[in-house]
């Protein structure tokens, strides 16, 4: 380098800085969340909770997308089209020119990897699954629980066939009309095969999975901060934020205070009772809506009192759902028609009704059952669900009003709530429909090989029979009839639960930021859904 060039270098560097800064005027957005990651990884099958669902779509995408900003219907994602050669096969045409965060183009090889080695390990979808690796720290074999989630999500998957560079086939062992919905789940995110090959071990890869989403994971400090940078080669357009900073702030009051003080642009996980606190300040607003999760009271029908279905029916008639929604949710959520969502499309039973609020009928059923005030235990967690304790206290009073003696017993965690010990009666639970079909909703919780059966809280032979038939049925009319029968059994004849309302997710934000909240846990900061200074 010549002397003049050497002398000019610092000046050039100084002059170049504003130019670099001007090159990207997009904002840096800071979002305060209660929790960043349960497992300290971002591999979707390892983060199957509201915490993970919020972030998945920002960095990883599926072949079939879900339009969370509208009606949660399935839309083209990394696949532009799909067709059914037969009831057990789904053929998808991949979107061309999609770039991973590492710059590589996504091809059918990445799809095969994402539904093969990445999800099921080296033994594949139908392998023995004998992984004993502890959270993938020593090798690239996925942890056993990842494989288990993969198998649960794709129980019939036989193989992925690569037809050509941009065409793949999902071949199931059995007919499955819900295959498109299963592919749309976050478990089915398409991740970079080469990034996996280059990673030191599964855990290192799981912390920064390389996907195709509008943002790439740039930095993760467990329990503290997650930074995502814009992926400017995103196939859907240039992301509107230069950087997203997610900071973990466990306390609600701290999230709200940080929003007010200007440190955060968004504050997530706002309970309904804080909505008025936030909106009292005209510079902020709370957005949110019902999501694909239904809150319910769940029965243990092996409890001596609850063994009589009439008692459970009486408990259902005693609950005024409208009042719960108005008082605890400020009217900002809805009561579904039984354990189903409108997003079920052709499977939605629009004429289905919940057991009506009818205290007189509840009293009549109790008289008929010869109920004499025997205590019914209600194991309760301290606000694991939003407003859970208040909800329980109100419900107990509603039950008391018709003569039911329900007694709250506080517990610390779910293991204690579901422990198969004397004194298990009523509990809180929720049901997420991970795509628009009963198979992805009620049948994830009830029926063969589910938690209710495993906990021995509720089983019904006819329910199990119809549920098994529904899972394999391909005729839509027969499926609807089977679903109706399932609801009749679980909500009326042999009640397993009381539907309360849809859960709702609320996010507080600056009013001058134009942004729409999703009808689910997912946060969308993609092209077209963020404008600062609106």
């Amino acid at each position, binding site marked *: 380098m010549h002397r003049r060039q050497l002398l000019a270098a610092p000046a050039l560097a100084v002059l170049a800085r504003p130019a670099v800064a001007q090159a990207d005027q997009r904002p840096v957005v800071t979002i305060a969340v209660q929790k960043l990651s349960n497992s300290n990884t971002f591999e979707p099958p390892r983060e199957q909770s509201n915490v993970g669902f919020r972030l998945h779509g920002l960095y990883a995408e599926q072949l079939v997308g879900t339009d969370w900003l509208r009606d949660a219907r399935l839309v083209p994602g990394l696949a532009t089209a799909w067709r059914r050669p037969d009831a057990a096969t789904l053929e998808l045409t991949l979107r061309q020119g999609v770039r991973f965060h590492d710059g590589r183009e996504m091809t059918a090889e990445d799809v095969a990897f994402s539904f093969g080695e990445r999800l099921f390990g080296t033994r594949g979808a139908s392998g023995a699954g004998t992984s004993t690796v502890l959270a993938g720290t020593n090798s690239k074999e996925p942890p056993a629980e990842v494989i288990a989630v993969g198998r649960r999500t794709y129980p019939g998957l036989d193989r992925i066939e690569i037809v050509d560079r941009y065409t793949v086939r999902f071949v199931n062992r059995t007919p499955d009309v819900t295959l498109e919905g299963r592919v749309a789940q976050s478990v089915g995110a398409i991740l970079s095969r080469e990034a996996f090959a280059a990673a030191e071990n599964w855990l290192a890869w799981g912390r920064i999975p390389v996907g195709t989403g509008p943002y790439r994971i740039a930095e993760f400090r467990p329990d503290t901060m997650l930074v995502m940078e814009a992926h400017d080669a995103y196939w859907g357009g240039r992301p509107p934020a230069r950087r997203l900073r997610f900071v973990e702030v466990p*306390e609600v009051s701290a999230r709200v*205070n940080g929003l007010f003080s200007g440190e955060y642009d968004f504050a997530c996980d706002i309970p309904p009772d804080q909505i008025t606190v936030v909106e009292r300040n005209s510079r902020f607003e709370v957005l949110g809506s019902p999501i694909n999760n239904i809150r319910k009271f769940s029965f243990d029908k092996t409890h001596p009192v609850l063994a009589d279905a009439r008692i459970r029916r009486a408990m259902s008639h005693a609950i005024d759902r409208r009042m719960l929604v108005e008082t605890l949710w400020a009217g900002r959520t809805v009561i579904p028609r039984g354990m189903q969502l409108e997003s079920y499309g052709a499977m939605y039973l629009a004429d289905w009704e919940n057991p009506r609020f009818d205290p007189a009928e509840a009293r009549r059923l109790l008289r008929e059952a010869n109920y004499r005030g025997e205590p019914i235990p209600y194991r309760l967690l301290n606000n694991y669900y939003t407003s859970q304790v208040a909800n329980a206290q109100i419900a107990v009073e509603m039950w008391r009003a018709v003569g039911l003696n329900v007694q709250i017993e506080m517990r610390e965690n779910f293991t204690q709530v579901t422990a198969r010990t004397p004194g298990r009666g009523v509990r809180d639970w929720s049901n997420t429909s991970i795509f628009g079909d009963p198979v992805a909703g009620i049948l994830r919780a009830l029926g063969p090989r589910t938690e209710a059966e495993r906990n021995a809280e509720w089983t019904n032979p006819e329910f199990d029979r119809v549920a098994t038939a529904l899972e394999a049925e391909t005729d839509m009319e027969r499926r609807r009839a089977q679903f109706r029968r399932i609801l009749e059994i679980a909500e009326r004849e042999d009640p397993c639960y009381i539907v309360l309302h849809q859960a709702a997710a609320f996010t507080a934000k600056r009013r001058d930021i134009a942004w729409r909240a999703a009808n689910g846990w997912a946060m969308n900061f993609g092209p077209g859904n963020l404008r600062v200074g609106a």
Partner: protein
Amino acid sequence: MLRFVASRIARAALTISMVVTFAFIVLRMSGDPAQIIMGADAPPEAVDAFRTAWGLDEPIWVQYLSYFWAILQGDLGRSMRDGRDAIVLVTERIPATLALTLPALAIKIGLGIPAGIYAALHRNSLADRIVMVVAVAGFTVPSFVLGLLLVLLFAVQLGWLPSGGQESWRHAILPVVTLGLGGAAVLARFTRSAMLEVLGQPFIRTASAKGVPWRAVVVGHALPNAAIPTVTIIGFMVGSLIAGAVVVESVFSWPGVGRLLVVAVGNRDLAVVQCVLLLVAVTMVCSNLIVDLLYGLLDPRLRGAARKAA
């Protein structure tokens, strides 16, 4: 002396092993880590797979023996949450916690002791009453309430300081002040009481009667004698340097050992909880040992008693 040290070390080892055993039993009896870490919606197959992978399906006594044997070999286990060594997870959080607790300790000592001495020397004066009202308020207001009040004032209303996080030294100010004020109040109360007790002793009257200047009486006779209860309290404060900021770290989203402990307890991340508890027990035992030695330095009578016993 050797026997004294050996017996103290043996007692410390017993204390630590009791803490570890107690924590092991309580954590395992009060919740299934597999269900908690995998979440309420996790498929049963995934929960089973997790349980098998971590040996949680073994009888509890088998788990305990393996755990204790591993500790004796210096292996504190791995986090079930992300598979890393528990000791690594804990030690990487220690600097963040000390960044709060050490300055807070300085505030406690620098503010609490002078305030207590001043209040004692001006007993029943207006200054004494003000100091004591502030001190009572300081240690009766829970730290999370004080923290939130400070955030409301300095972050939300005035906008001078950040409300939480750990991005710069400014982020540490409010949590340090929150921790420091509460501890200073406790020290002020104890120092005042100790000083008042000593100031009422005959040897103080004697020294004054002999014409020793009051300042010399206070510095040379009152303060050393009043130091023993104060040193005991400071010993506890030093012992809680590692995990004494659990609430404040949560309120201010400060990623220290306290936050790690809360998250680990919530997740029943057994190895991490046990590692933190072990560390806390060791710190507390060591600080108690140091306090014992300081007693000897501060009080000649204890030195004499030790010599006689020898």
